[in-house]
């Protein structure tokens, strides 16, 4: 029976890069991403499973990384906002959020873009209702969501051929 109070081994891939780390059991996934790996694009907002600022993809599924222990990501593939761009080119979702003014302060934006990434991976032409449902777990206190919806639609358009 494994029984470790101190450090536990975690092997995971973050944005395609493998990492072998040891973590304290109570370390949250978001802390591993921000503090250990220095990927500070993933934000901590409410820290109580409400706001979605900490959203990342875990094996393709959007999750709140403040509500998963790092040790649970053992064997997982994680995508953070830093993993969206390829070869210095912004991902179509990132470009659309900029072009449609889908952000103001930007605090919620990484989480919203990763929720959008899960949506568009499963549904290439989402309706407005489906878009609203997909981002219901991401709180934005600036935009009123209208431009975010436009950004998602724009991203869906530009990713259609992909």
């Amino acid at each position, binding site marked *: *029976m*494994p*029984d470790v109070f101190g450090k536990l081994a975690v092997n995971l891939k973050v944005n395609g890069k493998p990492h072998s780390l040891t973590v304290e*059991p109570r370390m*949250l996934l978001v802390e591993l991403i921000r503090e250990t790996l220095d990927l500070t694009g993933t934000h901590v907002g409410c820290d*109580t499973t409400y706001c979605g600022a900490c959203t990342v993809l875990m094996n393709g599924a959007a*999750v*709140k990384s403040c509500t998963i222990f790092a040790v649970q990501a053992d064997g997982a593939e994680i995508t953070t906002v830093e993993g969206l761009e390829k070869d210095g080119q912004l991902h179509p979702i990132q470009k659309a959020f900029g072009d449609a003014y889908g952000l103001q302060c930007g605090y919620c934006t990484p989480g919203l873009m990763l929720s959008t990434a899960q949506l568009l991976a499963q549904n290439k032409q989402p309706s407005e209702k489906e878009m609203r449902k997909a981002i*219901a777990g991401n709180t934005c206190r600036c935009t009123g969501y209208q431009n975010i919806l436009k950004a998602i639609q724009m991203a869906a358009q530009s990713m259609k051929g992909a």
Partner: protein
Amino acid sequence: MYPRAFHYHRASSLEEAAAMLSQLGDEAKLLAGGQSLIPLMKLRYANPGHLVDLNFVPGTSYIKEENGALHFGALTRHAEIEASPVAARIPIIHDCAAGIADVQVRNRGTIGGSLAEADPSGDWATVLMTLQTEVGCQKTKAHRRVQLVDFIKDAYTTALAHDELVSEVVVKIPPSGSGGAYVAFKRSAPVYPTVSAAVQLSMEGEICKDAAIALGCVGLTAIKAKDAEGALRGQRLTDKTIAAAVEAARAAADPQSDMRGSADYKRTLAGSLVKRALDIAILRARGEQIEAGHIYA
């Protein structure tokens, strides 16, 4: 926020997890989806000394139809149920799975974890109480099935022994001519509902052969509105019988005033939600494809 430090144990089977619970005693808690437990630990409302992680146990996430019943593995995520055509055989189950919190929480949270937590504001117990539901309970060397009504004992209290865990949820598929709906009223997606109502009807022509009505968030457990069910059973569903059922459901609610609303407000809401759920259930019992969803304030 960090929880209190704890020992982490990764179970490789449900039997092993039960053995760990037995060995570790009261200090141990199970970690399934973690969408309630981890926030509680971060806020230090829950301070387990040991966590037994079930997420690496193979074969605990499935949805299958067997002998006229749907079987859900304990760690089946809400999102998997939401997307499952098999689970959609019982539309009220789809209503529930698709409406819990938000995408991220549904990707992690599990049906077994929700029932085992027995939060009075949880969605699953309310919905499954309107169906014939049994909960598979696993000990190291024993397995039993408990009717859901006997499984939920009180707020945050179930029939599980300290060294026992939920292995499976089994729901009998209602006969043809049945229809159900679940409607919850929420201030926003990630929060618990203010009030929720589940209705499951079995019709024979114009006559309501059987009715099950349950209310969520208005008592220490989901409440079966028995008088409301009685007002419909054997009756033609007219405006008058429906109004009588709604009135009885309102009377069955036992809400507390809190930040989500006053007791009076919640009681009124309970009646309105039962009416909405009934309207959808009646149409579904006739075979109509009606979408039902949660209502946001």
